[in-house]
């Protein structure tokens, strides 16, 4: 994919089955570490009311919005039902030398 990789953080800055917020050039992203120790990234704001998803709870491959519990699959961006109906955009992620990068 795109060669424009941006460093997010060190691998261990994100707990397993957790998420952090990452802001870059005026945009906000959510970067996830799955229970299987893989990394993913999506847009940072919920598609229902523009709430930061990084305050939400990660359960397996689901991120749940902190505001009204809208759910997305963070691996695919798929909205999993009411109140969210618009999917999240996802971004490629790579881990190199213990650091996490996303391509935006």
């Amino acid at each position: 994919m795109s060669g424009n990789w941006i460093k997010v953080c060190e691998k261990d800055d994100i707990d397993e089955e957790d998420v952090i917020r990452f802001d870059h050039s005026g945009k906000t992203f959510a970067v996830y570490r799955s229970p299987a120790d893989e990394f993913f990234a999506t847009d940072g704001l919920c598609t229902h009311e523009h709430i930061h998803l990084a305050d939400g709870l990660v359960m397996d491959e689901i991120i749940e919005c902190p505001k009204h519990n809208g759910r997305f699959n963070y691996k695919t961006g798929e909205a999993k039902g009411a109140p969210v109906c618009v999917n999240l955009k996802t971004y490629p992620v790579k881990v190199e030398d213990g650091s996490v990068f996303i391509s935006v």
Partner: protein
Amino acid sequence: MSHFVIVGAGECGARAAFALREKGFDGEITLVGSEAIAPYERPPLSKASVLETLDPKFIASLEKYAESGIRLLSDVTAQDVDPVAKTVTCSDGSRLAYDKMLLATGAIARPLPGAAMNSAHIRSLRTHADAMALRKAMLPGKHIAIIGGGFIGLELAAMARMLCADVTVIEGLERVLKRGVPEDIAHVITQRHRAEGVDVRCGIAISALTEEGGKAIVRLSTGETIEADLVLVGIGAIPSTELAMRAGLTIENGIAVNEYLMTSAPDIYAAGDCCSFPLAIYGGRRVRLESWRNAQEQGTLAAANMMGVDEAISAVPWFWSDQYDMTLQIAGLSEGAVTHLRRDLGESAFMLFHLDEAGRLLAASGIGPGNAVARDIRLAEMLIAARAHPDPAALVASNIKLKSLLAA
């Protein structure tokens, strides 16, 4: 072809209609709603987002109803149900034959006895039209009096302050949010309103509410009189049960349903704000909730059960409220709790755990800026659903993650 009729096009009815399609129902769906516009979300009506736009936040676009094969009849009221002939007669003169019906008639604002409901200077808040009327009146320097220190009244007080109106809140009980919110949290909310310049007055009854000379006049039990440009009557909601009552269904603080959301009449279900139901996690205690997530979840569950799934209600009640930059969240029902434990979440956020005598977690409530309490309330909700008896020492220790208690 089978025909499912949903009466009440609010959060619950609309979600149920879409859920039927998502679950593969291929019969006809008719969604009948009294309001003139398509189903919209009510929570924004008392929140800052209503200041940003004049448009309601619709649950779905009209195209989406058409695409999903949902016949939406707006501005039509269901007037009579014949549960034997299985028909419903509507205000537009039509009579619909149904195979199964869902009553999702919601609730209306509770009127103040003896006072006008929606006049030039007195208003309740349930619909988008109410919100627009209130918004028009909330101008700098205008005085807004709010009767009732419940969620809607306090959210509206916060909005009115953001618009620089003067605000008085009059609560009959000794404190605001007496129903369902622990004292410590209600205290934080009261203090914040006072700091923002709201005059919060508790323990005061209303002896009369009238309109005179272009103002609303509130007479208080103390003998005082308050003049306001607008009065919001926010003293709770009552379930819309007339239709069900006329059809002979059992009513018990709302349309009574069993754990599958079935009413006392065959093939008629009820869900959302209009119904009372037994809540298994609290020993089958009958409750009625006025909560947005409950309306969604029950709409979805009713859809499944109308299709023959037979799934019982298991959800934990959950509610939130936004005032200024603070969010309050509550999971579970705290009735019967004897122990209340506090966990601090950073500097300005905290949550309370409510446990019964045996140490079972019944409910959790939290308040803080933004979404500071959301994650931990959600984890507490899972503990409540699991009927857990968590270690009290771990609950209060902010450095022990709640997630670790779930696995235990």
